[in-house]
């Protein structure tokens, strides 16, 4: 594969402006090299502290340099996407995902090199730049030409695009009268109907109703079969895992992880909930009434670190620190875990232990409950109950702080727990069916 092909590539004229479905194996993607490559891509924005916009300000203060801070939106990002691959870019808001996409699309200039080998179609910032005063038809033609179709080809495609967007009844309506959902549908339809080799998509799944989303998924699947390359920015880890083979996780413009989507999804959720939300309740003031007090409740992950969020499927430890003001013969603690809907999902208790522990007045107790985290993703708040079996119920001090923690995971199926399940599907022929019935 080497340099010979490369030289041939460079001298060859660009692939024809229109790549039809049958000609999908265009020369640009048939040489076994990646379709999209980014090497050391960096992007710095200058953020002027006060923007000098008028000539007067310039004239009055000729010496004053516009002071600005530089903001590094992307920091030496490298990755490569094989032809026919779905590549995901994940990250929190402001992590640089969209900036990276704009660099690939050629809308922003940037440091480093980017190769896009094939014709590009883009769907950025929920649209492709429509003119609100024109009808859908005119906009579709305009955008087709923008994306590199010839005017004739663009006009030919109008019906397909409008049909895909399910807007046949509104095709003569000015775009300003469209709902935002219709807008996005039309834009997405244009983006995928121009027969590009490489499609850059920014957050399309956030909008549109369920039926249209399904249509998008189907379209993705078709494109995948056709060997198109898709670079896909999303917050939706479920979609990421479902469609992408590889993904890039960005945080503050730097690569956190580049590789399999499983890890990217986990790390993404970790970044979202695990690190920044370090809000732990302060220990309660001394000297409150009651025989026993809960001083603090917190959650630890499998490495014993205090966290505000725990990924699904990993070990979780709930810690309860208690101070006793009286002697307790048989100290017990119970924790009710409530989910968002105030339903008790899980009860943890020491009551089933063969015997409780004895505590003197002034002593502290640490109750730890470890379990495999099978909870469904969501927010949980623990409610602690303390009891002394020897001297029942009047030593109870119910603790209900604002503390809550988050379970992260990308496979919310709707139940309150997600147990590890082994699933098999096979055709039930007559013999097995009879076995079951018998």
């Amino acid at each position: 594969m080497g340099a010979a092909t490369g030289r041939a590539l460079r001298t060859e004229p660009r692939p024809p402006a229109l790549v039809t479905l049958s000609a999908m194996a265009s020369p640009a993607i048939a040489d076994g090299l990646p379709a999209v490559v980014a090497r050391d891509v960096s992007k710095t924005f200058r953020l002027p502290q006060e923007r000098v916009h008028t000539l007067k300000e310039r004239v009055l203060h000729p010496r004053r340099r516009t002071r600005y801070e530089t903001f590094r939106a992307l920091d030496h990002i490298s990755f490569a996407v094989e032809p026919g691959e779905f590549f995901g870019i994940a990250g929190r808001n402001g992590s640089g995902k969209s900036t990276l996409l704009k660099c690939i699309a050629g809308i922003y200039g940037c440091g480093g090199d980017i190769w896009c080998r094939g014709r590009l179609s883009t769907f950025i910032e929920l649209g492709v730049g429509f003119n609100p005063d024109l009808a859908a038809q005119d906009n579709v033609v305009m955008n087709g030409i923008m994306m590199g179709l010839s005017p004739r080809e663009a006009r030919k495609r109008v019906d397909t695009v409008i049909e895909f967007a399910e807007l046949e009844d509104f095709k003569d309506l000015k775009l300003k009268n469209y709902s935002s959902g219709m807008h996005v549908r039309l834009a997405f339809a244009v983006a995928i109907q121009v027969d590009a080799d490489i499609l850059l998509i920014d957050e399309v799944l956030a909008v549109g109703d369920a039926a249209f989303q399904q249509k998008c998924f189907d379209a993705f699947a078709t494109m995948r079969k056709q060997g198109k390359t898709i670079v896909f920015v999303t917050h939706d880890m479920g979609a990421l895992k479902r469609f992408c083979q590889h993904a890039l996780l960005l945080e503050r413009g730097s690569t956190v992880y580049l590789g399999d989507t499983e890890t990217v999804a986990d790390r993404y959720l970790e970044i979202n909930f695990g690190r920044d939300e370090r809000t732990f309740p302060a220990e309660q003031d001394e000297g409150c009434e009651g025989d026993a007090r809960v001083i603090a409740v917190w959650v630890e992950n499998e490495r014993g670190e205090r966290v505000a969020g725990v990924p699904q499927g990993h070990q979780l430890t709930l810690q309860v620190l208690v101070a006793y003001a009286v002697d307790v013969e048989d100290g017990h603690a119970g924790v009710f875990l409530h989910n968002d809907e105030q339903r008790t999902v899980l009860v943890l208790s020491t009551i089933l232990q063969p015997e409780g522990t004895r505590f003197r007045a002034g002593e502290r107790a640490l109750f730890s409950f470890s379990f495999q985290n099978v909870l469904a993703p969501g927010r949980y708040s623990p409610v602690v109950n303390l009891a002394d079996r020897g001297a029942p119920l009047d030593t109870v001090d119910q603790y209900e702080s604002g503390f809550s923690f988050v379970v992260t995971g990308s496979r919310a199926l709707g139940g309150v727990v997600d147990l590890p399940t082994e699933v098999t599907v096979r055709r039930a022929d007559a013999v097995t069916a009879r076995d079951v019935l018998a």
Partner: protein
Amino acid sequence: MSVDTQSLPYESLGPPIRGPRALTDDWSRVWHLTFNIARNQWKLRFFGSVLGYFWQLIRPLLLFGVLYVFFTVIAHIGSGPGSGPGEPNHFYGAQLLGSIVLFTFFSESTNGAVRCVVDNEALVRKIQFPRMVIPLSVVLLAMFNLGLNLIVVMVFALISGVRPMLTWLELPLLIAMLTFLSVGLAMLLAALFVYFRDMQPIWEVLTQVLFYASPVIVPVTTVEQRLSPALVHLYMVNPLATVLQQFRHAMINHATPSASALLGGSVRLLAPIAIVVVVFGLGLSVFNRTAPYVAENL
């Protein structure tokens, strides 16, 4: 992971993308884009109005009517000395209308271009395309109008008694010179407006100044009578003056002096042409240099 970014044969990948630019290698795409944007704007302007194009024409016609009445009836410029048959000011009406239409083209394309890149933010921020298309489409739109307006001018001229002349063939050259000037200024203004928002009022004022500094209303013979020859030469170096005066000479009335005569020799025509070339080159280079950063500076 199947793709290792360290050991890729980067040389085999071909040239990397070059980011946003003003120009492109694919000129047919530039043309299609420019034409379609201009056509859409044209459609927008006339869509839903019964009289459509008439409204586009009424502005220069109204201006013409007012100026014509004022200068012929009240100030006696058009009907004063020199306006008899075979004299320079004969056909003052046709000359005035022609000048107004040409100047309207210049003013429409440059003033329309000032805001154009900023107004097309939605496109600039979302799609990669040669940025030059935006100011070009503004000029093309003004050109559609010019074409239709010129028909009216020629009809008016024929009615006033102008007979077809061989020098009418100069028209494309005159339009080309005016267009190059307009495109150059359009690119310059569009690029500057992104950084200096007061380009718009400044240019409006300058357009007014140019309107009176060019032979639109005043017949050039009047200028000749008042100014010294050197100042007349200077007056004619203005490319707008050159185009407008040559239009009058070649299209309407041979009795009015040609641009080269007023400049004092055909070689001196190179001066206004040089100005057009410089303005165009400046506009192109400024626009080209700012184009990569426009999307992030809007």
